[in-house]
Each structure stands twice: as C-alpha cells, then as structure tokens.
C-alpha cells in the first residue's frame, strides 16, 4: 500500500472534524507489516525482576515433560505458565512514540510510518510457584552412595546425575536446584551429585561423635585437621569433611578450620536411626533410649523431630512413629489427602511441620488450612480435618 501523505492525513482530520490545533503535530500512520499475520511473534507477560533479567542479557528457559504443565525458569526462580486470553486485540508496534517522547524530540518528523509487527488475542502469563524439587531427591535416591568399599558402585548400572543432567530433568531454576542439593546434604563425587545411604551416613557421623567424645573436644569447636588425621585411615577425607559440613557450621579461628556441631540435627538423625526399625514405639521408652544414644553433652527434645516423626497422644501408652515430610506428595491437595488419611483430625501444631513447605511466597500455614481443611473444636482444642470424605 502506498504511504500516506500529509495532505491525506489532514484531509482525514478534516472529515473527522478534529481540530489540528488541539493535536500534536506528529502523526503515526499505522499499517500492517509484511510478517504481521504470520503468528511468528508472541507475547510473554513479565513478572517483577524478569524484565531486568532480559535487559541484562540473561536467558529464560521453559521446562516440562510432555505430561507436565510447563514452567518457566530464570536463573533463580520458577513460574507456572499459562495462556491468558483477552477479548481485545493486542497489536505490537515498533517505533511508536509516546506523547512524552514526541514532546521531548521537537525535531521529530511530521509523519511517522509505523509498521505493526504482529498482533495477538492472547499472551503467556506467569505466576511464581514452588520449584518442583521432589524429583531431585527421588533421582538421587535411585543410587545412594554407600561408601568407597561398596561393590555396588563399581558395577553400578544406575544413572548418576551431573548438574547439567539435573537441569534437564527437574522443573526448577539452577539456583533453586543447587540450594536444594545443599539442603539435602548431597555431595559431588567424581562429578556426580550423590546422596549418602543413611546407614553409611550414620557410620560416618558415629566416627566423628566418638572421636569428639574420646578427645573431649567441645561440641562448638571440633578441629577439621585432627578429624582428617584420626579418621583418614577409616574413611575417605572428602567424606569426613562432608559429614562435618552436613552436621556442623564451618568457621575459621586463628587460621584453623573448626566446626560448631548442630546438636539438633545430630539428635534428629539418631532418632531417625532408632525409629526406622519398627512401625511405632512406646513414647517414653523411645525418649529414654534416644537420650542415651546421643553424644555426651547433647539434650534430646521432641521438637527436634518436627517433620520427621509424629506422636500419637490418643493411644495408651502414647506412641511415636516415623513420618517424613519428604516422603509425602508434593501437590497441595494430594498432601492434605495423604495427611488426613494418616490421621483424621490434626491440631495446627502437629500439622504445621507437614505443610510448611507448601506455602507459596507470601502464604501462611493458616491460609493453607483455610483452603484445604475444615476446622472444628474437639475437647476445647481447635482441630482440622478433611473437607471431603476420605474413603
């Protein structure tokens, strides 16, 4: 189509009975570009922070298996994606100036011929979501590391995963994956991420706690060098250091590396070791054995077991059993179904450790309970049960 002239524009203004004196001098004559109807362009609505990512030259990645909902990942966040339809037509116009820009640039042409690059009635909408990290643990649990003496490792036909492998299998951003690897105490062995077999982990921990005891070191100042020297003949040095990092806080004092041991984490691991051997335990018997099993100077408390074990106060005698939050479903509704299948009515105190990880960015446990549970009073205490009948 021929480009419009100033005369034609003015004639149109006259026909439209618009007063040129009330308008800025510049006009944009809009036409559809050659590629406009091609559907090559689409729109992605950007959540806060993503615009800056793109302006910095960083990429975003859409990830998903064919049967999963797609997610979009930046370097450190994950978003659910969906197509939002508008009833309006959205046209994208390069080189189109706003009134401010026209006023600022007094020398701008009188006629700006702008070509519409494309149009759409929909766009991709994003919503920040929890990264889908349950799969990470599942993958690493396929082949837990049992130590260098394990014959299994040499003959292993199981998949082992590098960081790149994990990025191509898990719907999460790289930083979220790396952070979770730290949270679950994974370690890199020969370039692959591994989780320790629990028995091997306890064996390593036991070496360390026995050494602390025999050397009478304070729990807050365990020297790395001495540990490596004393235990280096029993286990690989990397494993000794790894167990210290997993169960302690590393710091440097006067040029030497020490660890402040996490009392709570050690007590919790020992509890897991005891509880995994039976379906449930008499609570008071368990508490006695547990206190005796932890290193000298440590005190056991039931609140160390949040998200790991559950006390049944309704049974006589009271019992305790292993219930690990990481073994429960990742999806909100499925998680609540699972919990209500285990126990019909929950107090907020008991259920919180098992739903805390479901909270979205600014969501509270209370909000989750309002959405997925129904409350009632039982013996003067507020309890939550399922909104739907559980078969």
């Amino acid at each position, binding site marked *: 189509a021929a480009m419009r002239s100033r005369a034609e524009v003015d004639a149109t203004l006259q026909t439209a009975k618009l007063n040129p004196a009330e308008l800025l001098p510049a006009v944009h004559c809009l036409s559809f570009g050659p590629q406009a109807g091609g559907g090559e362009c689409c729109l992605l609505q950007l959540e806060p922070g993503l615009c800056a990512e*793109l302006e910095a030259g960083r990429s975003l990645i859409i990830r998903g298996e064919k049967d999963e909902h797609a997610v979009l990942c930046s370097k450190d966040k994950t978003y659910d994606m969906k197509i939002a339809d508008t009833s309006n037509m959205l046209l994208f116009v390069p080189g*189109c100036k706003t009134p401010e820009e026209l006023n600022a640039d007094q020398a701008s042409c009188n006629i700006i011929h702008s070509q519409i690059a494309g149009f759409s009635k929909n766009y991709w909408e994003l919503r920040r979501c929890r990264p889908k990290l349950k799969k990470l643990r599942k993958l690493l649990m396929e082949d837990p590391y049992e130590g260098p003496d394990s014959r299994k490792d040499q003959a292993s036909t199981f998949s082992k995963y590098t960081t790149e492998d994990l990025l191509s299998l898990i719907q999460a951003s790289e930083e979220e994956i790396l952070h979770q690897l730290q949270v679950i105490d994974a370690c890199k062995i020969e370039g692959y991420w591994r989780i320790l077999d629990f028995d091997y982990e306890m064996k390593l921990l036991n070496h360390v706690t026995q050494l602390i005891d025999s050397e009478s070191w304070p729990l807050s100042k365990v020297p790395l060098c001495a540990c490596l020297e004393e235990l280096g003949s029993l286990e690989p040095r990397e494993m000794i250091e790894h167990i210290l990092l997993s169960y302690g806080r590393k710091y440097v004092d006067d040029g030497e590396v020490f660890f402040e041991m996490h009392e709570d984490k050690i007590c919790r691991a020992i509890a897991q070791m005891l509880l995994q051997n039976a379906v449930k335990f008499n609570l008071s018997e368990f508490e006695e054995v547990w206190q005796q099993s932890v290193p000298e100077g440590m005190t056991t408390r039931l609140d160390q077991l949040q998200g790991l074990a559950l006390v049944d106060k309704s049974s006589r005698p009271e019992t305790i059993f292993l219930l690990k939050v990481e073994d429960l479903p990742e999806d909100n509704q499925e998680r609540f179904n699972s919990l209500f299948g285990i126990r019909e009515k929950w107090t907020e105190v008991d259920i919180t450790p098992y739903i805390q990880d479901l909270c979205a960015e600014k969501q509270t446990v209370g909000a989750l309970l309002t959405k997925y549970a129904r409350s009632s009073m039982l013996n003067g205490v507020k309890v939550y049960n399922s909104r739907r009948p559980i078969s």
Partner: protein
Amino acid sequence: MVQIVISSGGTGALAQWVLLELQGEVEPRQSGDLAGSLLGDLHYTCEGVPVLIVGHHILYGKVVQLEKPFAVLVKQGGASQPSPVGAHGHYAVTALIKTKLLFKTRPKPIITHVPKKV
C-alpha cells in the same frame, strides 16, 4: 524433558515497542490478508490523549504504563543451532513493551459528507 530457551541480546539489542489494545477484531477492508494494509492514523492531543482514526471510526484512548511489561518473542527456526542444554526450541526476545495505548471507549463513527451531484 522439553527445554525451550528464550534468549535475550541484552539492553543494547532490545527495542522498545508499544502495545496498541483495541476492542474486537481487526479485519481487512478488501479481501486478502492484513499484511501491507493500512490500519489508520494515530494522533495525540496536546494533553497527550491518543486518538486513533480507523476507517470510519475515531477512537479515544489513554497511555498506560504497564505494571508488568511484555517481552515480544520471535520463534527461531533452524534445527542446526548448537545449544548447550539440548534445547528443543528457541525463542529470541526482540523487544520489550512497557507502554500501551488502550482504546476502550466505543468508537465514534465518522459521518462523511456525501457530496450532492449538482
């Protein structure tokens, strides 16, 4: 798992475009596709109100700074692109849109004067 990369050339490579939001459909006057055909004239009043003349209609709109900007993605063809993550598709960010011209008011029809034959 499918991985689709959305790559960006950074601030230097990203143009700033504007979104025009119109009600309803846009159809060509003559038959044939839209490519190449005129849409209309976009003016601004001295107060900065956008005025769009499309066919026989005048549309008054407003300039809106988008709370959530848009990225315009263009699909990249070429299966022979080497990529580190084994990407199964590639989009490039061509432009960012931080402003839209929203035309929500009902179009005012332009009544053209039909000249009488003398």
